[in-house]
């Protein structure tokens, strides 16, 4: 493929259906309360809000957006999933959506869905009754697929493993579904920087699992899952950045110092205007990734790498500006800004760092490393 050719023009707008979906998810998240209670729940060791997951997954059906209707899903696409993730990002909502409804689901869709075990698990994930987590390092991106030598060993930094019902373990001998509560499985929570996305160390010692795919398809299926995960994470990052900007603008219009709203000082407003430009640009990059993934286009690896190389840094910048422009209140545990900062910073490492994705862009468009 000529790296410069663009085989199709991506649709970068939102459809009416997508706008409706956004409104429904946003209303649901607003009903369930404000972000600051996330910190409280995290400290109480009860992070994942079962009410939230039930309402999102079971009642609204958004866990099955990527799954075809004949497998119990909604038969929608990455475009709709991206809209859900924007809203989850805006609310720093703690839900295993990215890990279960996107990455694990895409891995399964990359297997032979005619296999009863695969179809059965997809149905369960689509319904939201159960969740699954891919047992890989959360920091690893689509160009960094690692297979376990066998169903035996230990791996730290696995996202949402502690709350998942099923662990998807990619091994050199094939992909296995392992029950988290099964014999020989130990999942020990770690202390995450991002309180809204739990990490754990998974140890398998004499565990058994159900074979879902052979060695030949496992690597490609995992890569597919991580590609979708990376591309759609950009939409979560967009949502995070958007909230940070809106909240900062709102606050600096109200906060008075020197007998003026602090938002009237150019030193501050230029920073917010610059951030606005970055958010607007993130939207184009994230929509491009979602639309290209939805179309199954050969452009997806480039669109995903571009979106991740850009949107991750913007989310971090937005959260850092949010803390700084809020002044003292932005440093408190009480104000939700810290949740956004931690999520944004962790997201910038997750599913491939900005740097790794930037280097992928270089490979894909033919700008090689020196030497």
């Amino acid at each position, binding site marked *: 493929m000529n790296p*410069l050719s663009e085989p199709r023009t991506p649709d970068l707008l939102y459809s009416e259906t997508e706008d409706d979906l956004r409104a429904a998810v946003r209303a649901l998240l607003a009903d369930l309360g404000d972000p600051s209670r996330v910190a409280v729940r995290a400290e109480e060791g009860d992070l994942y809000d079962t009410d939230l997951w039930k309402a999102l997954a079971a009642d609204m059906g958004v866990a099955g957006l990527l799954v075809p209707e004949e497998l119990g899903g909604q038969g929608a696409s990455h475009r709709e999933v991206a809209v859900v993730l924007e809203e989850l990002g805006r609310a720093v909502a703690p839900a295993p959506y990215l890990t279960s409804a996107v990455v694990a689901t895409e891995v399964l869709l990359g297997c032979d869905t005619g296999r009863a075990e695969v179809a059965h698990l997809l149905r369960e994930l689509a319904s939201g009754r159960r969740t699954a987590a891919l047992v890989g390092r959360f920091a690893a991106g689509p160009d960094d697929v690692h297979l376990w030598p066998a169903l035996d060993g230990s791996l730290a930094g696995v996202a949402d493993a502690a709350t998942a019902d099923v662990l998807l373990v990619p091994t050199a001998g094939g992909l296995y579904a392992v029950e988290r509560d099964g014999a020989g499985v130990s999942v020990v929570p770690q202390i995450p920087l991002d309180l809204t996305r739990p990490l754990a160390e998974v140890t398998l010692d004499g565990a058994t699992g159900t074979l879902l795919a052979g060695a030949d398809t496992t690597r490609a299926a995992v890569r597919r899952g991580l590609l979708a995960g990376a591309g759609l994470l950009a939409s979560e990052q967009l949502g995070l950045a958007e909230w940070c900007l809106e909240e900062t603008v709102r606050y600096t219009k109200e906060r008075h110092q020197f007998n003026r*709203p602090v938002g009237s000082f150019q030193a501050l407003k230029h920073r917010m205007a610059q951030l*606005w*430009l970055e958010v607007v640009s993130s939207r184009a990059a994230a929509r491009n990734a979602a639309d290209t993934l939805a179309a199954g286009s050969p452009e997806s690896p480039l669109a995903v790498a571009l979106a991740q*190389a850009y949107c991750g840094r913007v989310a971090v910048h937005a959260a850092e500006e949010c803390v700084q422009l809020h002044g003292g209140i932005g440093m408190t545990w009480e104000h939700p800004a810290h949740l956004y900062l931690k999520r944004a910073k962790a997201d910038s490492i997750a599913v491939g760092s900005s740097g790794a994705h930037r280097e992928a*862009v270089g490979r894909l468009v033919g*700008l090689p490393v020196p030497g």
Partner: protein
Amino acid sequence: MTDAAELLTRTQELLAAHPPATTERTDFLKARFDAGLAWVHYPVGLGGLGAPRDLQAVVDAGLAAAGAPDNDPRRIGIGLGMAAPTILRYGTEEQKQRLLRPLWVGEEVWCQLFSEPGAGSDLAALGTRAVRDGDTWVVNGQKVWTSSAHLARWAILVTRTDPDQPKHRGMTYFVCDMTDPGVEVRPLRQITGEAEFNEVFLSDVRIPDTMRLGEVGEGWKVAQTTLMNERVSIGGARIPREGGMIGPVATTWRERPELRTHALHQRLLDLYVEAEVARLTGERLRQQLVAGQPGPEGSGMKLAFARLNQEISGLEVELRGEEGLLYDDWTMRRPELVDFTGRDAGYRYLRSKGNSIEGGTSEVLLNIVAERVLGLPAEPRTDKDVAWKDLAR
């Protein structure tokens, strides 16, 4: 209502009556204007048919397919993009009849006499004086950054007519005859060695009152129409991948492996990502416009491209290593168009410094985004209610 089918018919009739192959270019353009196919959204008799603006594409495609000449819109951009909409909105019937046809055809080039040495970002502080003398106005002052002044037949001109009013009041807008003996045009040599722009000195220039646009004292309001159209005309076109400044530097990287370093590679990839995202942002804006949902993104695009052009061309100079120590040509020239790709990296580096200054500095644009898009409060102002003559300068 004029629809696409009717416009196609009229286009075919024009082509039949004036075959491009055997018709002189200017004659064809005049015939096109008279057929109402110049700018279809303009009124009948003024080069248009009162049709929806987006139907222009139908006409343009039909004419391009037949190999018809165009009016070289880039060369007469100030006339088309700024003078014409202002004349259409504020001009008298006589002014429209006299001025619009030669403007569109390109027989009469236009320039813009707005900025002054003492009135750049703060355009409303301008001090070129126009004093009434019976049926004419006598104008004295200095304008600057005037492209095409040395080619222009006419100028759009904003003057100060009442210094006792606060600065936004007391201005009046004119069409100035550039052949008046009181008009002196001097090239303004710039950082690149060439002179795209001019300084224009106005000494007792006499402008008949019939060449005034809008009411006396309403010049600022009229100028807003001009400037709004300037912003509309920036951006909008679809850019292919690597279509901007990133293209030449990416090509150099691919073709010259001996120049590559790790430090430059990291910067190149950063800028490549940003350039591609800016291109997609422009594409999204275009799609919003086509869908009839214009967003505020347009105000940000100029900011993004100014910074990117500067950083990318700066990187390109460094990438060229020892060749970056050289410059292609310092000869003073008078280019008609800015050509970012026709010259070397050093030229691009220097010329793009203007991108964050011309058409609104990046600092002013950030204020505009902050106040109009984000709704942040304005800075307190000390100049609003002070007579122009009492302002600090």
